[in-house]
């Protein structure tokens, strides 16, 4: 363990990796601050730029973008009342009210410091849990993997804001999109329509950029954002002693909630921030004041989303299963660099695992420095008009997509998925289940076919092994719960008496 720890420090402290770490957290904070592009879009955008970089440098940078975005997202929530990130939506409630009361400084301060504490504790958890989990996962066979992935997808659809039924449909559509290309077992072209460029399947970059980048811009320009930065002097970034007294348990509770919800397949930073806010309100002695500028309402969700951002690396790095869409992009990035995420990753590429983990410590320190003293710079960036910003984001999307394969077809695919994503948002379909299912599709199919081969065509194989049985029981339970709650909701309520 100590050797691995030292190896990680050695890798993370290499000047080139320090640079990538800084670039990642800087870009992450930037995209977190700017509404209109999230970490999924930014990571997809930068994926092609990492091709010439070493795998460890690329993953350090992309990880930095993810957890950096969690820090940056709070700035817009507090100052503009527009969440820079989905995981910072809940921070708007109390953060913006604090800014209106002239307490923008402590709100930003507790968000950054709470994130730092949560992120650091979460990394320790990652180090402690990932290795034994990976060791246990070595005994997993295709049925266990299939059941785990099903569980992840069903939990994700269960937790979506809209209809679970529609989310499940999107997951199925995502799985279908993942079938495009050569069949992994027989090398038969599937759904390629004679287009050679589709033999390798639909690229992850055009799909993600279209669904999360272009569609977001189309939504924003159809009804332009009216940003009004609350004009207040940001002073006294360090919270007062009184703030610390009321916040310490909020930060810790947020960290614990975020850590465990981040590991959960289908969970992640967004869910963690909402749950921690709800818990904080429940345990508070003055719940009625939540939403009026209570500092715990900022500390808890901001700590939770950062803890979740770090802990969501656990299933990816130890099991090889991305628990959410952001991790799915990272999963794609690892595959492009020839690294297979999974239980063997820690053993076969210790420099990547430990290097990335150690870079997270360094990244958290960099983020603290970026987000507290340089807050004025981020506020100035917020003032860049969206009419200038969105063409630049679109241009980066176009260049990023083209440079993966030097193919114009990828540009068209991105536009197509942009329109699809736009219509999906309009018609209340969630893009996240589609994206995660698309990434998991080859793994799902492979493990299902292998399982059926092993069992001689019997689906009972998923119910005859303890881990897959537990997952499948959970899957069926969630689906049954959803069906029963739906039928109860729709049952006509008879008037009393």
């Amino acid at each position, binding site marked *: 363990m100590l050797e691995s720890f030292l190896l990680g420090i050695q890798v993370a402290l290499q000047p080139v990796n320090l640079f990538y770490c800084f670039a990642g957290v800087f870009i992450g904070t930037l995209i977190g601050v700017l509404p209109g592009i999230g970490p999924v879009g930014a990571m997809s955008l930068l994926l092609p730029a990492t091709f010439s970089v070493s795998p460890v440098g690329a993953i350090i940078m992309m990880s930095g973008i993810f957890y950096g975005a969690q820090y940056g997202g709070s700035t817009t929530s507090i100052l503009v009342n527009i969440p820079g990130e989905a995981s910072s939506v809940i921070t708007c409630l109390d953060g913006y009210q604090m800014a209106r009361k002239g307490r923008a400084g402590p709100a930003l301060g507790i968000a950054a410091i709470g994130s730092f504490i949560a992120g650091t504790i979460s990394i320790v958890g990652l180090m402690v849990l990932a290795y034994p989990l990976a060791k246990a996962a070595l005994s997993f066979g295709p049925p266990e993997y299939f059941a785990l992935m099903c569980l992840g997808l069903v939990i994700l659809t269960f937790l979506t804001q809209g209809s679970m039924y529609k989310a499940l449909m999107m997951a199925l559509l995502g799985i279908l999109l993942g079938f495009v290309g050569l069949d992994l077992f027989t090398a*038969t072209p599937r759904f390629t329509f004679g287009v050679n460029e589709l033999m390798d399947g639909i690229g992850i970059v055009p799909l993600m950029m279209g669904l999360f980048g272009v569609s977001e811009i*189309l939504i924003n320009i*159809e009804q332009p954002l009216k940003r009004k930065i609350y004009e207040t002097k940001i002073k006294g970034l360090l919270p007062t002693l009184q703030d610390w007294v009321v916040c310490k348990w909020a930060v810790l509770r947020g960290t614990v909630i975020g850590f465990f919800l981040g590991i959960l397949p289908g969970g992640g930073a967004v869910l963690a921030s909402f749950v921690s806010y709800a818990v904080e309100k429940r345990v508070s002695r003055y719940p009625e004041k939540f939403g009026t500028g209570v500092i715990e309402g900022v500390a808890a969700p901001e700590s939770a989303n950062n803890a979740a951002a770090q802990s969501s690396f656990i299933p990816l790095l130890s099991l090889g299963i991305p628990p959410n869409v952001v991790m799915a992009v990272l999963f794609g990035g690892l595959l492009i660099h020839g690294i297979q995420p999974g239980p063997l990753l820690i053993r076969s590429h210790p420099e990547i695992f430990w290097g990335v983990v150690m870079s997270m410590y360094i990244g958290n320190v960099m983020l603290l420095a970026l987000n507290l003293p340089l807050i004025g710079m981020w506020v100035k960036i917020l003032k860049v008009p969206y009419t200038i910003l969105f063409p630049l984001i679109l241009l980066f999307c176009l260049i990023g997509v083209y440079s993966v394969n030097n193919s114009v077809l990828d540009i068209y695919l991105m*536009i197509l998925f942009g329109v699809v994503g736009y219509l999906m948002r309009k018609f209340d379909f969630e893009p996240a289940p589609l994206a995660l299912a698309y990434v998991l599709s080859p793994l799902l199919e492979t493990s299902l076919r292998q399982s059926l081969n092993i069992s001689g*065509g019997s689906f009972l194989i998923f119910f005859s092994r303890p881990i897959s049985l537990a997952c499948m029981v959970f899957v069926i339970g969630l689906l049954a719960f959803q069906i029963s709650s739906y039928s109860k909701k729709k049952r006509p309520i008879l008037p009393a008496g």
Partner: protein
Amino acid sequence: MKIYDVYSALFLTILSGVTCLLAYRLSLGSIHNPGAGLIPFGVAALLGFMSIGLFLRGLLRSAGESRSEEVFKGVEWRGVVLTLCGLLGYGAVFNRLGFRLSTFFLMLLLIGGVGRQKWWSTVAVSFFTVVFAHLIFVVWLRCPFPIGPLGI
């Protein structure tokens, strides 16, 4: 349940039907030794059933509603359409006009046409964007972008 669910369900039903047909033409194989088309066939069929369910539910519950109008209410179509045309046009002319010229024209369209900025700021921002993008992607990252007429 809204009326627009009927349209989206109809689209997904057709899509899954076509996918089932295409998957059927691939080898289905057997359950214990699945062919290339079996799993896609199963997934498309499941999506088809769910789409039909959504379609019927939408049809039964949306009588009298016209929510499809509300979804697009207040949308400034000019910006959306111009942006999509700009992106499609960029793809169409990228190889012929080259990276720099096509990027310049796209920026003109997006900043001036969609963003409605003043003409001089549109030209200036477009120009500097091209220079900035050239320095980052061509000079620094050495992306092999197509070169346009007269080597521009």
